[in-house]
């Protein structure tokens, strides 16, 4: 009844090629943006920012990046942690070498550097396919972490080997460092998330995205019809690493503030982002958000329920967290193997016909 395309006629080419052709979708999009930008910054507090919203936003960017590579282009990548580390270290070196330039530029430049590194490690994809490709990205994962640990230039010769983000300001408001307010952390991440999502959505809808999907579905056939596999695969790696690098820079500078590469950007991070992408739904921008929300918020919610509400000992709650997350993953996969995004799509389909059954 509300969610319909009947009676909605497009009168211009622009309107015809909108991202959200159905009016209800458009309004929903604007409402979500309004709430995110205009309402939440005023009600957010330190705990919500640090425990839920900021990690959710940052992982959403990483998941968008990985979704482009694995979901749209079909190249399995397990190097997400290391690429986030590249973004973080690039941001750190830029921040300490050019303290006067705005951190926003540093973050984007860090993304660019990560894109170059990602494209370089994506070269084996031209020869190796499927799960086996994961080995190239795993080599990247372990090698880069070792490199950042070993070469003192990366952490400015500090005695401890950790990097920490000095305080930086945007329009006079601190966004990194301990004096950052919750809403400032949240807003800077939100700006980057919105930008990334818009860019990613439009890229995947355009010819670049179609080339990626062609490679994913059947790369030999794609090559036959004229899709250059070198360009398509490397561009997928580059674009994906750009987003992952931005998320790594934000993770380091805004969220954590101090990072030790082995513990924070290890193989667990790579697996975590991959799980978000798979659970959220491969090949869908919304899926990146859904997966990130699931894997970031669910453990915190379970902990709140277990420890604060029910008063159980924290280690039992931690064990139950693992059990419940595992069960929910398996349950969702059985119910809807294509992820939460597919559930969303099916819901929208049904809503189009509501209240009629067919």
């Amino acid at each position, binding site marked *: 009844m509300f969610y319909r395309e009947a009676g909605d006629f497009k009168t211009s080419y622009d309107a015809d090629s909108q991202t959200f052709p159905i009016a209800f979708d458009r309004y929903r999009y604007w409402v979500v943006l309004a709430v995110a930008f205009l309402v939440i910054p005023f009600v957010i507090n330190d705990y919500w920012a640090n425990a839920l919203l900021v990690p959710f936003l940052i992982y959403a960017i990483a998941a968008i990046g990985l979704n482009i590579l694995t979901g749209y282009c079909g190249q399995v990548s397990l190097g997400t942690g290391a690429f986030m580390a590249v973004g973080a270290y690039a941001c750190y070196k830029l921040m300490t070498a050019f303290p006067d330039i705005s951190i926003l530029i540093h973050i984007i430049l860090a993304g660019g550097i990560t894109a170059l590194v990602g494209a370089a490690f994506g070269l084996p994809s031209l020869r190796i396919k499927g799960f086996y490709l994961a080995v190239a990205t795993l080599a990247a994962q372990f090698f880069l972490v*070792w490199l950042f640990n070993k070469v003192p230039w990366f952490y400015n010769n500090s005695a401890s080997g950790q990097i920490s983000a000095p305080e930086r300001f945007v329009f006079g408001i601190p966004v990194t460092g301990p*004096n950052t307010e919750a809403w400032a952390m949240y807003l800077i991440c939100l700006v980057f998330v919105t930008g990334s999502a818009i860019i990613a959505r439009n890229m995947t809808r355009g010819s670049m995205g179609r080339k990626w999907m062609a490679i994913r579905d059947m790369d030999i056939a794609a090559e036959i019809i004229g899709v250059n596999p070198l360009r398509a695969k490397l561009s997928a790696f580059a674009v994906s690493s750009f987003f992952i690098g931005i998320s790594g820079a934000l993770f380091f500078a805004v969220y*954590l503030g101090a990072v030790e590469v082995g513990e924070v950007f290890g193989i667990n991070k790579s697996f975590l982002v991959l799980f978000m992408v798979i659970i959220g739904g491969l090949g869908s921008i919304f899926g990146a958000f859904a997966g990130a929300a699931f894997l970031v918020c669910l453990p915190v919610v379970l902990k709140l329920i277990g420890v604060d509400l029910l008063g159980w000992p924290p280690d039992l709650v931690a064990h139950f967290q693992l059990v419940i997350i595992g069960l929910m993953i398996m349950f969702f996969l059985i119910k809807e193997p294509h992820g939460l995004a597919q559930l969303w799509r099916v819901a929208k389909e049904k809503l189009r016909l509501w209240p009629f059954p067919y």
Partner: protein
Amino acid sequence: MKIQNLTALALSTALASGTAAADLVLPDLSYRTGAYAAGGIPFSDGYQDYLNMLNARDGGIGGEEIRIVECETGYNTEKGVECYESTKGEGALIYQPLSTGITYQLIPKATADNIPLHTMGYGRTSAANGEVFNWVFNYPANYWDAAGVIVNYLLEENGGDLKDKTLALVYHNSAYGKEPIRTLEALAEVHGFKFNPIAVDHPGQEQKSQWLQIRRERPDYVLMWGWGVMNQVAIQEAANIGFPMENFIGNWWSGAEHDVTPAGAGANGYKSLNMNRIGDLPVFADIKKHVHDAGNAAGDGSNIGTVLYTRGMYAAMLAQEAIASAQDIHGVSDVTPAMVRDGMEALDITAARMKELGMEGVGPEFSVTCEDHGGSGLGIVQQWNAADGKWVALTDYIEPADDITTPLVAEDSAAFAAENDITPGCYKG
């Protein structure tokens, strides 16, 4: 709907705990799960048991009951941040994260939120400089002190001369493991021994190459800076290659019972540092009576008296003393974190006081000042007796190498101050 409920839930929990705060809140950022649970469980048990005993036996500190808020971090930095954020609102007085990674996160946050951080024997070593790190304390000793203590012990063993000996360091390839390298290099230059650092990648389950290298090179002494499974495997591999265990010395985080028991008899003679002297202290009887027998033990009660349990208890005792000192200075019993910070800065632990508390000689004597948050830096060397299944203290408290470490601390803290725009100086409240 769900989000609304959860908001209400979070708000009500925050409010509820806020209004109930007529007691002293001590958070316990523990890790009873994950790769380092073997070390985290006894430490947290000791910490909580001692505080619960204070409640049961003495009615708390200065008449105020202690409320422990445990939060499971799994040794994970992000969870550590989440635990910090969720517990700081409850009036947390002192944070002891027991993890170098989490400590680095919390140093700027705790400083900005004005809550003191006590990172005893771990964390950022240069926090000993109280003028730069007003809110961070790492008494009684830190990693660079540990390196100095080991070298001083070896000097004594070798009649004051280590020239031309080789010291190898098997270290966890992380910030924690790399801590002593700079100090040991400086000490190598001074005393003329060769220093050979050997890295072990996380988690340290596989160390065959490193120990084959040690077998080939035959260093005179091997030091270890490990944590978690790396300790157990290293000791096993050392026993396997037949390295003389009395020349194998680990730091105080590589010297617990669970590190040596998997290797069985092969671990006999392994030495480690300890910042505490362990033994059958009278306070354990009190803990048994008031806490374990009342069914209130933090864990399963089996860890009492072990190295890490004693250390956790020692950490709790230091927190107790800091709070008591704060109550003394400010004249109120319901202290705030800022008051506790003052209490920590005025702390003076004497042998008489430790005996009074039922733990004679459990730690070194030290006093904290505004400039020196690092304590005296003393440590003992203990040796594992596999037949009896006990650690035996070999020495009394040994001095560190202050002449080498003090300038290094100054240099590192100055760099931190420069990076973060801090003007060094005592905290003026």
